[in-house]
């Protein structure tokens, strides 16, 4: 079962230099461990490459998860494929873990003709129904009550499916956070709320966001379990999420997981964090890098070497660059698609507007 939280408790498995507490190590298989490591590295390299791409003006915007990979991978790995994920915007990793192709991700960044979401949203706001990953939107927190509703619907349908929603520490201030957790408590919904407490909401630090001792303690207001875990410690995150999932699946209701981590880079490519946060804070957290820690753990287990590591980084980057070249050639969505999917069928007034756009374009050319 999910352990109860005192305000200060922080569940962990790995020490900062990757030594596992044997008593609590979930003992994932070597294949799983290596897979998860490769995914984290892939995600990291991708994020870094995309930021460069944005600086070169080849994409308009990017928002990544540097430093938060263990939180995302550890939690998503604890789910079953039929479980629904409601992401905020830093959880592309969860999609990759489920098999969402890099190519599809890049097409979404470009907003091109192959993008599953038809170039409708800004970068990183993907949607991947085949992987039960719900459409992302920018307004923070809106996904939380939706995740509760989907979980209730799955239970009503008798499906063995639960929901997991991600959100940031800042997002806990929104009304949607409150109503979601309250509904989850009342209906004992099979849902997991994962707060990536990365300490900052753009320029606002956690202590200006809330005066509560922790995020996890907020669970008490809803009669659900709250748990606080080291978010840079993949096995620990996996473990608490797996427990929460088992509980949800067996009718035990919702869990709020606070994963304590850190946003190592700027909020997005639009942000320069040096304006508002001290360099030494960042340096300190760089020492707790979740990928580094996990690598040390693998190395100590004897299943990974520095040579393999260098090779992995190299190959991953090369793959990304190759796929990137391919997708950059794909054209924009056709202008007429502007009017699709507003409704199931295009109603008369939209058909008329579509026609007027045609007419105007013909005039132009």
């Amino acid at each position, binding site marked *: 079962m999910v352990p109860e939280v005192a305000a200060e408790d922080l569940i962990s498995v790995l020490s900062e230099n990757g030594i596992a507490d044997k008593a609590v190590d979930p003992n994932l298989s070597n294949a799983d461990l290596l897979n998860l490591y490769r995914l984290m590295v892939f995600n990291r390299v991708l994020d870094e490459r995309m930021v460069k791409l944005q600086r070169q003006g080849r994409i308009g915007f990017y928002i990544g998860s540097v430093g938060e990979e263990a939180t995302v991978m550890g939690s998503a790995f604890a789910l079953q494929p039929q479980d629904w994920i409601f992401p905020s915007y830093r959880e592309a990793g969860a999609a990759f873990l489920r098999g969402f192709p890099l190519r599809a991700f890049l097409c979404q960044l470009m907003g091109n003709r192959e993008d599953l979401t038809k170039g409708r949203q800004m970068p990183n706001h993907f*949607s991947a129904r085949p992987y039960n990953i*719900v*459409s992302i939107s920018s307004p923070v927190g809106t996904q939380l*009550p939706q995740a509760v*509703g989907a979980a209730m619907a799955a239970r009503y349908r008798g499906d063995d499916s639960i929901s997991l929603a991600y959100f940031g520490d800042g997002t806990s201030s929104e*009304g*949607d956070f409150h109503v*979601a957790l309250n509904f989850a408590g*009342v209906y004992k919904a099979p849902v997991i709320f994962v707060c990536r407490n990365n300490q900052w909401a753009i320029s606002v630090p956690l202590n200006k966001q809330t005066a509560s001792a922790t995020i996890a303690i907020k669970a008490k207001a809803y009669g659900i379990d709250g748990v606080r875990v080291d978010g840079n410690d993949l096995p620990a995150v996996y473990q608490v999420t797996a427990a929460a999932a088992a509980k949800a699946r067996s009718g035990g209701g919702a869990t709020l997981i606070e994963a304590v981590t850190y946003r190592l880079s700027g909020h997005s490519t639009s942000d320069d964090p040096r304006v508002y946060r001290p360099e030494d804070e960042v340096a300190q957290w760089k020492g707790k890098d979740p990928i580094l820690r996990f690598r040390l753990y693998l190395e100590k287990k004897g299943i990974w070497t520095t040579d393999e590591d260098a090779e992995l980084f190299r190959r991953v980057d090369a793959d990304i660059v190759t796929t990137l070249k391919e997708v950059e050639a794909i054209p924009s969505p056709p202008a007429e698609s502007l009017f699709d999917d507003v409704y*199931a069928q295009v109603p008369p007034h939209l058909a008329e507007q579509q026609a007027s756009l045609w007419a105007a374009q013909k005039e132009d050319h």
Partner: protein
Amino acid sequence: MPTLNMIQALNDALKVEMRRDDRVVVMGEDVGVLGGVFRVTVDLQQEFGSERVMDTPLSEGGIIGTAIGMALYGLRPVPEIQFADFIYPAFDQIVNEMAKYRYRSGGQYTCPMVIRTPYGGGIRGGHYHSQSNEAYFIHTPGLKVVIPSNPYDAKGLLLSSIRDDDPVIFMEPKRIYRAVKGEVPEGDYTVPLGAAKIVQEGRHVTLIAYGAMMQETLQAAAKAAEEGLQCEVIDLRTLLPLDTDTVVQSVKKTGRCVVVHEAARTGGFGAEVSAILMEKAFLDLEAPVRRVTGFDTPFPYSLEHYYLPDANRILSAIRETAAF
């Protein structure tokens, strides 16, 4: 055919559809044990159980947010917002989420759901139990907006709305919930969305209205008839998408038009109707389209009879339009 009031007709529609389709669930404040403060959902919980007819916590954002999740997953939720005046805590979920899911996901996720909510004045409810806020939703691409004016349409439109694959704001004119009665077929039938109804043919002036204002409009038309003015009366029924053809055809015939609604004038739906006629019937217009609407004040209490359009105000507009 039984004679029902609007409440009974709506209740009947919910029963018909819940029996037919187990994806339909009802939720909202006081909708379960109590059967709704207006009794529209009465007896549903007894028949369908508390997992399908849910008394929710007091949170409109929570009601609509969770209903969206259910719709995404494949259910057909029919949440109730107790009064349209209280819908705003859910406004973000409605306009940024529910309305845009299909579009933003490239058609991968859809939100087939119906938000039922009583709206409008005339019940001495003041600011917060009288609002007509349809214009906010009409300006929101992705939504459909439906407003019935009688029991027959209420049932048939609600059934169509629940079966529609897009999200619908279904606004119920509470003022005539009990006052207006009519024959309503038992069992299943639908009234199509997007189709206005010509309630009365006429050749002098076209009157366009919906919801509770149909009563006042028909009264005004009757009075006008006494003065020899034959009005063509259109009940819009669906405001979005609008049945532009029916409206434009009628005005092309009469050359004159009065549009009526309770909502405040500035930026109300009457402006859109007027603008459409400007664009599509300009050369046929023999007089300016007139708006008879609520005033641009918050909805008052003691003076609501001044605020609300009534048959006299509509009649004046008909006269002026006809005499132009």
